[in-house]
């Protein structure tokens, strides 16, 4: 008996220790449940973070574009329709009106981590007989790296786009048979052409991006795309990527421009991501529920087994409240010990997973970290579930009539 422990704790711990086999079995049961939850959560958050990183590697969180040209029906002065048939208008490449002012305003918003002006449009890359259709992207590298982390994705040369220099993807380099130091001719659809020196090769993790994107300086792209002084979009990076859709709508309302969030652009991917989260929450809920039923059923049996002891304790002056707390504590202790065991098991599973789940080149398939926060949540959650599960048996213990309990 430790001198600092109150009666309820002493009784709860002794009862659990005395019911050795029962206690061990239920703690292992809780542990298995908790390990499934922790393992699944860590695996899933690792997987989602990985997928998200891949998806967002070559995309801005929000792209602000000029509003689309809309054709309106022609009306006479008395409001009579003159030309009732309206044909959808072809969209030409246009600049954002007064983009410097808008850029300053967006950069001042606390939710936005970076703003990068971009002039991009379709073009051809020509080298010898090879002729490839590309997306020409004019950037200011010092700003663009905050939106798309291209600097760390350079696999050859460097990220340098001074006048007459271009950075291309590894796929395009292969198609054209070009490398760092080679020359490349780029022509726009309007027939303007220029020659660039390849200074760097990037790998953004997507074959189509690696085959299409060509980065040049903002100024070079402006003159090739006939957008002198203008930009075709402002690319934004956010602090909280999940706020993208709400923020995009606010920006659209605010500026009258079109703002596309990555959530809208990748709607299917985002839906897959959130339905994955929902289904994992459902699994977590039911595992938690079965853990709770397990604890409750063991404690119900324990109350029946110990009803005479409960009666004796009551005869010795124990109140209903003391008996209630004694059994609630047993539920909490089982939950806590089970969660610690479960976290250890989950850690073991994850270590094994990282040993066996590897890419062909031996690198881990994706990073999984068991966050200390996750273990703390699991421990707190399992303790709370244990106490809740103990509610019914504990109330039965408290309600026992000592006369009946002692005689029984």
């Amino acid at each position, binding site marked *: 008996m430790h001198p600092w422990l*109150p009666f309820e704790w002493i009784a709860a711990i002794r009862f659990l220790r005395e019911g050795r086999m029962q206690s061990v079995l239920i703690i292992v049961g809780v542990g298995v449940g908790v390990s499934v939850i922790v393992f699944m959560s860590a695996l899933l958050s690792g997987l989602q973070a990985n997928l998200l990183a891949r998806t967002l590697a070559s995309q801005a969180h929000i792209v602000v574009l000029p509003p689309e040209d809309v054709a309106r029906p022609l009306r006479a002065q008395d409001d009579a329709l003159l030309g009732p048939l309206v044909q959808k208008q072809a969209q030409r490449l246009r600049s954002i009106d007064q983009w410097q002012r808008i850029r300053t305003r967006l950069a001042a918003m606390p939710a936005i981590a970076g703003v990068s002006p971009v002039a991009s449009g379709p073009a051809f890359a020509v080298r010898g007989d090879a002729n490839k259709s590309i997306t020409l992207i004019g950037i200011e590298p010092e700003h663009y790296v905050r939106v798309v982390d291209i600097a760390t994705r350079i696999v050859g040369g460097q990220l340098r786009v001074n006048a007459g220099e271009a950075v291309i993807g590894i796929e395009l380099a292969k198609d054209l048979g070009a490398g760092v130091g080679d020359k490349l001719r780029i022509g726009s659809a309007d027939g303007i052409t220029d020659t660039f020196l390849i200074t760097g090769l990037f790998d953004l993790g997507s074959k189509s991006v690696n085959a299409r994107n060509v980065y040049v300086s903002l100024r070079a792209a402006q003159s090739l795309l006939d957008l002198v002084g203008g930009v075709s979009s402002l690319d934004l990076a956010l602090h909280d990527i999940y706020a993208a859709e709400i923020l995009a709508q606010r920006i659209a309302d605010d500026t009258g421009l079109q703002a596309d969030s990555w959530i809208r652009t990748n709607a299917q991917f985002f839906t897959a991501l959130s339905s994955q989260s929902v289904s994992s929450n459902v699994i977590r809920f039911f595992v938690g529920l079965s853990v709770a039923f397990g604890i409750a059923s063991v404690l119900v049996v324990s109350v029946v087994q110990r009803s005479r002891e409960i009666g004796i304790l009551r005869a010795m002056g124990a109140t209903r409240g003391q008996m209630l707390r004694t059994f609630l504590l047993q539920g909490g202790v089982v939950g806590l010990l089970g969660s610690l065991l479960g976290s250890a098991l989950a850690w073991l599973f994850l270590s094994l997973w990282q040993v066996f789940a590897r890419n062909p080149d031996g690198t881990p398939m994706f990073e999984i970290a068991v966050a200390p926060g996750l273990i703390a949540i699991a421990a707190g959650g399992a303790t709370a579930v244990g106490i809740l599960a103990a509610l019914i048996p504990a109330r039965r213990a408290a309600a026992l009539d000592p006369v009946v309990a002692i005689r029984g």
Partner: protein
Amino acid sequence: MRKSYRSDAGVETEVLHGIDLRLARGEFAALIGPSGSGKSTLLNLIGLLDRPSAGSLSIDGQATASLDDDALARLRGQRIGFVFQYHHLIPAFSALENVMMPMLIERGRPDQAMRARAAGLLEQVGLHAQMDNRPGQLSGGQQQRVAIARALAMQPSLVLADEPTGNLDTRTADGVFALLREVNATLATSFLIVTHDPRLAARCDRIVELVDGAIVADAPPV
């Protein structure tokens, strides 16, 4: 006091009809009577484990009718000690811890004074050497001595003993009974002992006889 029970069918049966009993401080009384006469029911009422259907009960001059369950539990812990026929020690705790239990329940946390008092009581009942044994490691007589030590832990005014020697052989029973008398003599604790054994009843100072829920005799042994 009266006590009646309502059966599941709704029929009311009175098991104690107008009991009027007064136990003086330091009295050593036996409660006898055939099975089903209401002895256990009366003991439960006096022990504050149950409430009378009619009438009142006072302990040390304190009326109990208006007390709620928790207050009743506390009063029970402080003033009344129980010794049951089947010892009823708690197997998860050692002999010493069992004796400490009423004090622990009352005060919330264990302390040195509690431990010392429990050890002293075990010495008094001759079990100092077995103090760290679990109940399962003690003989029947030893368990009952621990139960007596436990009943005395809170220095109660009254000890209620339900067949305290009913489960023991004659020699052990004599030893346990002698211990009860010794406590009665040295601490002036009142005792009410339910027994079937006329030999035991004859060694008490007063014999209360209960038949069919009523007291039919109340006198010193002849």
